[in-house]
């Protein structure tokens, strides 16, 4: 029994932490976020050199063959640093492809994904908040896909769309390549400018079926839930620490504001709620590869729990910074916006808890 990170995992996390600190401070976050497509090829390449894009890809396809927990450590660091870019969608797409049946497609694409030479994304959710594989309406007839995916991460910069849809046999996964005919990408104005979303319309687009059934779709969605939960912890922890630091520098009434109990106790409450959730996150990420019967339900519970905590933590963080916290100039809104994205994407907390209730046979 060992409930904690391995030496290798601590090293991995540390490496990414230092890389992002050096290469992507908030000045760069802002520059990327204000660019047209919200994507910085140089940053993507830098992470590729660290092997970040192939973390969960098998060695035979050029990856590091690690687990969802390792990926979650990266997500946590990205959450801490508010790193922009197509990490979430590409990770879900990679997880989907890994869970697919088509070996040729894997051999063709996984090596390119592992090196970062190609960026994939995952197109699943439809209408308002519908992420259930059995309720999707995008349809494939022959090898032509039609339908609408309103919230696809970074579709504009992606080389490969991994699409959840249905054909006469039921739900499944299809690949659609960049530049294919019958694909219309329209960017969405989102609150979180570090993680772009596009609406994608498929109108008879050529599509290659790579998985039948809903298992691969669910897997990708669950990986997404875990990564969002990890992003939440990283971001919330950053907000907590920033605020604690601010509380020992900002003075009012002749003393630092952290010496007022009202401030101290708000911070203590934030830490009390947040700190145990790291263990829930670790357990859940670990379960994704090792405890199959608990993984899906834990992913739903953890996402809801951490998204709610991120929301409340960032709320107090801004309050405790006073007027400066409400400015565009000051960085806190970067995390606030990510919290907004996290609470909504893949379905809100009520939706996740409803799923957890169903998965628990309540």
């Amino acid at each position, binding site marked *: 029994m060992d409930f904690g*990170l391995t030496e290798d995992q601590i090293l991995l996390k540390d490496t990414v932490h230092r890389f992002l600190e050096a290469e992507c401070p908030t000045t760069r976050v802002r520059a990327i976020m204000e660019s047209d497509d919200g994507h910085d090829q140089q940053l993507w390449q830098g992470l590729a050199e660290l092997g970040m894009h192939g973390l969960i890809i098998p060695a035979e396809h050029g990856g590091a063959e690690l687990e969802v927990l390792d990926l979650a450590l990266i997500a946590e660091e990205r959450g801490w640093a508010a790193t922009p870019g197509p990490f979430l969608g590409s990770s879900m797409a990679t997880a989907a492809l890994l869970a697919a049946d088509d070996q040729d497609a894997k051999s063709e694409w996984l090596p390119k994904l592992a090196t970062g030479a190609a960026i994939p994304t995952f197109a699943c959710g439809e209408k308002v908040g519908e992420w259930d594989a059995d309720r999707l309406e995008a349809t494939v007839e022959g090898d032509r896909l039609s339908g609408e995916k309103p919230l696809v991460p970074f579709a504009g910069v992606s080389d490969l769309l991994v699409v959840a849809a249905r054909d006469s046999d039921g739900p499944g996964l299809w690949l659609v390549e960049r530049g294919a005919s019958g694909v219309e990408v329209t960017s969405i104005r989102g609150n979180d400018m570090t993680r772009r979303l596009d609406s994608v319309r498929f109108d008879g687009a050529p599509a290659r079926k790579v998985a039948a059934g809903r298992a691969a779709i669910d897997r990708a969605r669950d990986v997404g839930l875990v990564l969002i939960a990890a992003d939440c912890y990283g971001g919330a922890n950053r907000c*907590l620490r920033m605020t604690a630091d601010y509380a020992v520098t900002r003075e009012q009434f002749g003393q630092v504001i952290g010496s007022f109990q009202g401030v101290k*106790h708000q911070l*203590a409450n934030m830490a009390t709620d947040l700190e145990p959730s790291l*263990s829930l996150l670790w357990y859940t990420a670990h379960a994704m590869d090792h405890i199959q019967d608990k993984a899906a339900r834990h992913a739903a519970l953890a996402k809801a729990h951490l998204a709610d905590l991120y929301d409340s933590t960032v709320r107090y963080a801004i309050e405790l910074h006073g007027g400066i916290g409400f400015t565009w100039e000051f960085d806190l809104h970067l995390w606030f916006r990510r919290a907004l994205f996290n609470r909504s994407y893949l379905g809100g907390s009520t939706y996740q808890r*409803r799923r957890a209730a169903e998965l628990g046979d*309540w």
Partner: protein
Amino acid sequence: MNLSYSQEYQDFREEVRAFLEENWTDADRASAPEVDLQTVRGAMGGGIRKDARATEFRKKAIERGYMYRGIPKKYGGGEQPPDPLKATIIAEEFRRAKAPFEIMGQGPSMLAPTLVEKGTEEQRQKYVEPTLLGHILWCQGYSEPGAGSDLASLRTSAVLDGDHWVINGQKIWTSNAQEADMMFALIRTEPDKPQHEGITYFLIDMKTPGIDVRPLRQMTGEADFNEVFFDNARVPVDSIVGNRGEGWQVSRSTLKHERALIGNASLARRTFDGLVAMAQVIEVRGEPMIKDPVIRDRIAAVEADLLAAEYNGYRLLTLGAKNQDAGLAGMVPKLHSTNLVYKVTKLAMDILSDRGLCAPGEPSAPDMGGFSTAYMWYWGMALGGGAPNIQRNIIGERGLGLPRDVRK
């Protein structure tokens, strides 16, 4: 991260089962069932078997390392490396077999580890094992009418007279003093020294003449805590742990163990499992409560927080086994888990709907009124061992580096 029930753990479960099969027979199980841990009284350590048969069984279980795993063998403990999975397996199997388990309360969980850490060899030999077996029942004499959160301002005094200490003063909120054999207490022995350096840690026989215990009735209606008056009570000179004036330091190690005890999520878990079971049977408008969308949502929200508390416990055990500092993760459990008890019991009350008005023991209530007691016990847990604001000070100051609060 390794949480799999590998072969080692499956074998271990078999081994525990075989042990129980052999040593706690069907006749034992039938004769006097262990107390129901679902009840608050059970969860707080009441009604546990301590008779000869139970003691004989406990000794064997300790010998095998199934109980008191943190206490060395030579003092009567089970002495095993921390292993939450094994601890879970043991707890599950013992519960299933209705076998006697560890005695709960302040003696085994707080005093015994403190003596192992800070006591003399003689004190360890004399007290630890009988405490673990439930043969010496302890109470904790720290709080006084004028010294609660500001414990170091305590005034109960002891003066050396020949080979005896003479104690005068008053303790309050002393849990279980009415049935305790012994008290571990903080008492002022050096009135001229600075507050924290004038306190000594005492072990006091409750039968000493001059000690008067007067029960206080709690809001729950029960009387588990007391006032304890000392009027020239004389105890032997060797009744102290550590040196004169070092009591504050010795007590820090006790409090650490107490917060671990209260910080444990097991009461919240038992209550939670109970409320889920109840929500499946209580019907409103022809449907079980658990089908109500709002109730489901709230149960799932509380469950996530509960799981966080439990896994944080795993994390702490692992860190402890590696001798690593737990930082914030080790400071928040008391406040987090008592908050959790509030959330869980409040939810249980809402599920009970109008039956939540039934008092403890009311036979027509679906829970026999147990949840309303648990709901009230929240304050007992929140205040005992340090009020919530004091926890917040500790977390803010030691955990987040904020300036220290007022101190005398």
